[in-house]
Structure formats: C-alpha cells, structure tokens
C-alpha cells in the first residue's frame, strides 16, 4: 500500500513537503499512484511517539481499558508504539501471557505493543520471573512497576539476570515502608489531614538502584521521577558514568500537589504530584538531559475506583491523549525545551533505551509517523477520549498541539483532518 502525505512540515521545520510511505515503510518519493493521500495542510510531521510506560489493563481489567481501546487512545495521542507494564491479571510474568498480549495487539491494536515483563513471578518480589522465555515472546524490558522489587538482593539479581538477555530493568522507585499515604508530604497534606508520601520514599530507592547499577556496571532505568532531590541523584550518577536513564510524566511538569485541593482523586497518583520547586526541577532535568524520556504512565481506572473517598481511590491518570499537548504547551511554548528535544524524549530516546529501532523518519524505517497541528489552541474534553477511562485532571485545560493523523506501520490508526 502506498500513502502520500501532502503539505507536511517534517519536524515542523522548513517548507511543507510531500511525504511518501510504501509497503509500511518510509519511502523516497515515487511516481506510482497512491492508495491514500492526506493533505495535512502544513501540520508538523514527527516520528510516531513511543510510550515506554503505560497500562493497557489487558488481560484481567478490561472494564478499565483493553488493548483495543487503549491503543486507539494511544493513536489519538500520536503514539505508534506503547509498552504496557506487567500488572495485569494474570500477571505478565511468563511467555504465554506475553504472547497473548502480542497476538491480541496484532489483531485489534491501533499501535505496536511491546510488553514489559514482570521482574519477579507474580510481582511477588521473591523469585525471578522467566525473563529469558519472555524475551523470546516479545518483552522489551522488565519491571515490577507499582509493586517495586523490595529487597536489594533481588534487585541485584534482576539486574544481573536481565543483563544477560540485554534487557533493561525499569524500576518504580518507592520504599513502601515509608510511603503509606495519599499525596505528597508537605504543608498541604498536613492541612488536608491526608497522610503524606515523602520524596524520601522515592529517593531512597533511586539511591539504592543507582548503587546497585554502579556496583554491577549494568544499566537501570528509573521510572517517573518526580522530585528535585531524586533528579539530582540521577544527575550525579550520570556524571560519574553510571548507566542510569530516567523518565518523567507530563503531569510532573504540568501540575503540582495543589491539584489535590478539594480532594480531587484525579490528581492522585504514584509517585504523587509534588511541589512547585519539584515541577521546576523536572523541567530542568529534561532540559539538561538528566531525564531522558517522557512517558505517560497511562493508568486508566473505572469511575468506581476514582469516585470515592480520596485515600481509598486508586492511583493513576490516563495520559495518551494529553501527553504531547502538555509537553508542547508547558515545555516548548514556554521556551524551556526545543520542539526537537521534546519529540526526541517521546520517540527516539525511548526507542533507544528499549532497543526498538524506531523513532526516526529515515528512508526505509517503519512508517510510524504522526502529524500535529501546533498552531491552534483547543480545550481538552475528557468525554472525547477514546480511552474507556475518564480519570484525567486535565479536563477543560486549554492546550496546544493536537494530533491530526497517526500512521502505524503504514496503517492509518488515527485521523482527524478537516
């Protein structure tokens, strides 16, 4: 199948050009007739976005989201590849579950799905999962995500063992013994009478992981870093050559703990939204490269899990359909990050960390591309999301950078052209 995209501004630079796709790959210009032609009217064309950290809730929690709805939501946000965390039911801790996710994605998915395997069986933090067999089935990394590996001993073994299969360990850094709480610990949590989660809970584990990685000379990836001191730990480690990479999420650079005011459960997540100084530190960390990538941590939840008392509500927010807009609005338009840098954080670098071989517009590369209207503001409406879930704190926010076209492997997965 041949596709022609007319009037696209590659990386939003230069004059609008025609962009060719042949048989699922980015192509040189050709004269043959095209099966599809899109005129994107000067919209910016980027490599398809790659989300290294999300939750599709499939199998097991399809009432929250499933592979079909989740990847449709991803495509609407400009994503062409997503990496779901293993906290499904059954847990993605063996090759059979990995294979079922991969095959279902090929049948009903609107994005490439590269699963992340559990680091330990059943996420139990006791025994190593079958990491090698899962790699053969298609995983691109291992993680215990929200149930982080508790003991330093097992974390060491996970890094060592995964290293043999050239897989990176992604760690949700949280010392659960000190993190029993509902929001960031500080004056606001004190005033609201909510138990606080100190930045300490995150940073103790970041420090531990860095120490283990440094000792072993192996890589580790720090998930969703949210606070200044944690970012500094990573910055210092990188400076002395530790193979540590790090991610953050759009909510950590676009919101603060103030969003919890009024006990809004759509501002409840883990790690929690932090203080304004931490938000600034996240932006600084992105700008200087301490934080390598931006992920969504797309965490769909049913209304019944969110429309309850604050401390009882589940953690997490959806993210696919706001991620790029938040980056463009709060980082690029404010002059804190170049557009090129933002797109790198959301495509090329996640691909590099997970060794996906994507995230470029090179001739011959898989035709994973997305186009964004960067000119016009829009008001984000949660009820227009393609996700099954509605748990977003961004409803009603005026944003810039709206996806108008997404093509994944030469297949149109989202289109909203006038």
């Amino acid at each position, binding site marked *: 199948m041949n596709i022609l995209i007319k009037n696209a501004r590659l990386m939003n630079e230069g004059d609008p050009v025609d962009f060719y796709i042949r048989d699922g790959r980015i192509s040189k210009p050709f004269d043959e007739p095209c099966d599809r032609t899109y005129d994107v009217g000067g919209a910016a064309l980027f490599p398809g976005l790659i989300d290294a950290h999300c939750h599709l809730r499939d199998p097991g929690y399809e009432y929250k989201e499933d592979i079909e709805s989740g990847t449709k939501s991803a495509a609407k946000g400009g994503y062409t590849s997503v990496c779901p965390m293993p906290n499904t039911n059954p847990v993605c801790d063996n090759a059979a579950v990995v294979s079922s996710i991969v095959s279902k994605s090929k049948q009903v998915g609107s994005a490439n799905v590269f699963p992340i395997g559990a680091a330990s069986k059943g996420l139990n933090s006791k025994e190593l999962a079958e990491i090698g067999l899962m790699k053969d089935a298609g995983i691109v990394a291992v993680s215990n995500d929200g149930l982080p590996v508790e003991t330093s001993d097992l974390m060491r073994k996970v890094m060592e063992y995964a290293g043999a299969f050239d897989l990176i360990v992604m760690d949700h850094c949280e010392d659960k013994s000190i993190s029993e709480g509902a929001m960031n610990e*500080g*004056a606001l*949590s*004190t005033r*609201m*009478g909510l138990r606080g989660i100190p930045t300490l809970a995150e940073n103790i584990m970041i420090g531990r992981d860095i120490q283990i990685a440094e000792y072993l000379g192996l890589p580790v990836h720090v998930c969703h870093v949210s606070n200044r001191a944690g970012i500094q730990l990573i910055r210092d480690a990188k400076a002395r050559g530790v193979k540590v990479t790090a991610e953050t999420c759009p909510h950590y650079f676009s919101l603060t703990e103030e969003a919890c005011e009024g*006990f809004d459960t759509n501002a409840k997540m883990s790690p929690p939204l932090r203080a304004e100084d931490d938000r600034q530190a996240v932006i600084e960390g992105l700008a200087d490269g301490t934080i390598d990538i931006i992920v969504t941590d797309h965490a769909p939840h049913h209304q019944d899990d969110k429309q*309850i*008392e604050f401390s009882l509500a589940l953690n997490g927010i959806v993210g696919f359909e706001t991620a790029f807009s938040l980056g463009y609005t709060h980082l690029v338009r404010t002059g804190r990050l170049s557009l090129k840098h933002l797109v790198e954080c959301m495509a090329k670098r996640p691909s590099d960390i997970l060794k996906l071989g994507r995230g470029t517009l090179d001739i011959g590369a898989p035709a994973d591309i997305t186009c964004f209207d960067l000119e016009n503001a829009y008001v984000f409406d949660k009820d227009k999301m393609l996700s099954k879930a509605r748990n977003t704190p961004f409803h009603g926010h005026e944003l810039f950078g709206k996806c108008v076209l997404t093509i994944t492997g030469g297949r149109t997965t989202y289109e909203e052209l006038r």
Partner: protein
Amino acid sequence: MTLRSKDLLGINEMTAEEITEILDTAEMMKRVLTSGNKKTSHLQGKSVITLFYENSTRTRLSFELASKYMGSASANISTSGSSVNKGESLLDTVRTIDMMATDIIIMRHNQSGAPHFIAPFLKASVVNAGDGMNEHPTQALLDMFTMRERFGTLEGLKVAICGDIYHSRVARSNTLGLTKLGAKVFLYGPPTMLPIGIKEMGCTVAKSLDEAVEGADAVMGLRVQLERQSKSLFPSVAEYSKYFSILPDTLARAKPTAIIMHPGPCNHGVELPTVVYESPQSLINEQVTNGVAVRMAVLYLLIARRNQQ
C-alpha cells in the same frame, strides 16, 4: 449575613466573618438552651440526619439534641445498623439519604475529605462532624465560642494546643479558625506527632511544652488517639505522661486567668491528670454545653440559607 456555601465542610473554607456570624448566633442559642423552655421552631418542617461512620458521644448527641430543640424531624444512621455493612458505597448511601427530602446531613467519617467528596452530589447541606485527620469544624467553633465567652474576644489571645497534633482534626480546625480571628496559636507535642509543614497554617511550633504554655490564655490538651496509631509514635503511655502531659507545674506558666480545654474524650493521666481536668480553670464541661449552642447556630444558619435560595 448568610453563609456562602450550602455546606459546612471545614474552617478552611470559611471566612472570619462567617465564623463570627456563627459565634454570634450561638450566643443567642445558648440563651435558649439555658432557659427553662428549650423549644424553638427554627427547624420546624425540616429534616436532619446524622450519619456517623465513627464513634462519637458528644458530637453526635449535641447535633441530635440541637436539631430536636429546634423542632426538626431527625434521625440517625450508624454504620453498624445500615446497608453500609452490606458494602454500600459512601456515595450511594448519602444519595439515598438525600432522596428522602433531607435538608441537612451531618456526617462523621474516618476518611479526610469524605464530606468534600459527597457535598457536590447532594441537594442536602452537608455538615462535617469530623473527617479523618482533616477537620472537625464544629468542635473548633465551640472551642472558639468558649474562649470568646470567657475573654470577650479572640484577638491577641495565646492558645497552646498540646499533644497528638498529627492525627488531630481538632488541632487543624482550631489552628485555622483561631488564626483567622487573630489569636496566636502555639502547638507542641512529641516530634513524631507534629506533621511536617504545620507552621504554614499560621501557628508557631513550640520547642518545649513550657514555651507553648508560657503566658497562654488557653491551654488545650488533645486526646492521644490510640486507635489511629498506625505506627509507633511514642514508646509508652508512661513516657508520654512524664514528658508531654499538661501537669500543674507546667500550667503555672500560663496566665493566672488561663483556662484548660480538651475536646474529649480524655485519657486521664495521659494528656492531662485528673487534677487538671477537674481544676477550677477547666472549662472542659462547659465546652460540652457550648457544643450544643454552636451546633444549633450552625443548623439555624444553614437552614436560613436554604430558605433564602
């Protein structure tokens, strides 16, 4: 003057003027309460429901009596005898109460923010009778009423609040309210019971019990909430009593006119010894009476607002 909100969720949400309005109204209500005939008709034809997810003696009874003295239809639901025990969600429970033409729902809940969560879904006015560790606004109102009645004003008073600040919704509501009305609040307790950032609520965190009590007009003990101790915050009751209890020697540092307060129930010998509890300076029992008057005022003003809408 009318209250701005249909609900009374917390002192945090209230202005100094609203607090003063309630205290002024409570003065009138106290005269009713202490007269021979306690019956008024302010709540006639109205319904008031108390919904308590936690135990209570004073708050619950004072709300019930307040509503009855003022002529309302009232009923109470406790979690043990209701569908809450069958697993009904909070929202479904309060919507059910709301749909019975209820005017005011008075709720105590163990989760901070529970009343803030339900209020937007309901036609009824919601009164927070204590939510988790967040607020206990009517307790603070009755405490402020008690102090104002004794001293004439709250402006410039020094109030020491001592004990388990971390778990105390009473401390939070009082700190917010007293500060709004110009009093100086000093907090003291074991460091493990002093939550981070509390001074940003406008109070002073004292370095010692003596510093907190020195020259105070009012000294308030807080109950050590043994049921809320999720983690070890102090080693033993014996040690707490020795270092953190409000003893007569400490009290001697307060002004001679100082009053002793406690929201109750009191662990005698822990927060303060019986000799202090029962001393002439103690207004702990007077607080209970004032609690009824203040709650009458709150119900009166909320119904007045509803009648205007």
